[in-house]
């Protein structure tokens, strides 16, 4: 073997040996590479657990029981000249409309404390709540009786004009028998089809 061949062989052995050493070092290298900056105490990998951190426990906090005010719809307001007898037309919790004055109760837990031309204020659970009316307010005269119609009549009464029998002299009630027979026939027809 000449010198050239021997030199080449030696170089090859060196290359192989270097590769083996490199491979060995690569497989056994520690996580922190040489020359990396010192780990910052304040920043940590997300998957690392900080043993000093207090455990966080999710606790269910029951919400405080909050009373729910009634659903109030103010349909209208009637304002008295003296301001002391104002009326509000109110529907509570989708119930029928009622007339209310200051001092009246709304449902079981609220009370009317003020009625003005455009709104009504009521107190619920220590809070004053105000609702507004969309319809224009009606003014009533001081002589009118806003709440109860007079005992003699209701709206629509026509005085001194009672209905009379037909002009040809037939009497009220003369048609009863014919109508009753028609009604009976109809009821029988309905019963027959049931």
């Amino acid at each position, binding site marked *: 073997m000449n010198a050239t061949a021997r030199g080449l062989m030696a170089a090859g052995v060196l290359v192989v040996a270097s590769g083996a050493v490199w491979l060995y070092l690569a497989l056994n290298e520690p996580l922190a590479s040489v020359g990396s900056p010192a780990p910052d105490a304040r920043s940590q990998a997300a998957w690392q657990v900080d043993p000093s951190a207090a455990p966080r426990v999710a606790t269910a906090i029951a919400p405080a029981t909050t009373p729910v005010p009634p659903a109030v719809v103010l349909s209208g307001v009637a304002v008295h000249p003296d301001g002391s007898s104002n009326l509000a037309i109110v529907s509570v919790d989708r119930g029928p409309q009622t*007339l209310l004055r200051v001092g009246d109760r709304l449902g079981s837990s609220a009370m009317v404390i003020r009625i003005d031309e455009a709104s009504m204020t009521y107190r619920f659970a220590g809070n004053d709540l105000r609702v507004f009316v969309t319809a224009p307010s009606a003014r009533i005269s001081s002589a009118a009786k806003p709440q109860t119609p007079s005992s003699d009549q209701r709206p629509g*009464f026509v005085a001194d004009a009672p*209905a009379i029998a037909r002009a040809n002299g037939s009497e*009220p*009630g003369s048609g009863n028998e014919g*109508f009753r027979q*028609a009604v009976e026939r109809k*009821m029988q027809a309905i019963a027959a089809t049931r």
Partner: protein
Amino acid sequence: MTESLKLFCATALLVAIPISANAYRVGAPDTYSDLLWRVSSNVSGLSGCTEFQLDATGDLLNSTKLIIYGSLNCPLQQSGSYGVSGSAYFGGDGSYNMTLLVGSSTSLQCVRFPASLTGSCTYYDTFGNFLGSAFLTFR
């Protein structure tokens, strides 16, 4: 168009008219006049009213509904009256049910009257508030 074809079309039209009329239930309503219900009530403003003078119109052959109209006479109360309008229908159970508007602000509800057309009814105001009861007698 031939004469025979014209005749055929005219005949077909004459036949079709009553058939289509039956399909749409064209009927003639009857009016039952001079109906009288005696009434007694303790409702304020209505306690002096003693009789409903009404007419009823409807086609009971082809329908189960009637319109009713007339007055509520109040001889004990300024000798006046209230205008009345409303309707009645026969329910599926064969009952007679009547709703009347009395004057401008009062409604009368009569539910499930028998064939005698006599029974208790209820007065309400236009807010739906209960005003009182009434007893109607149909003689």
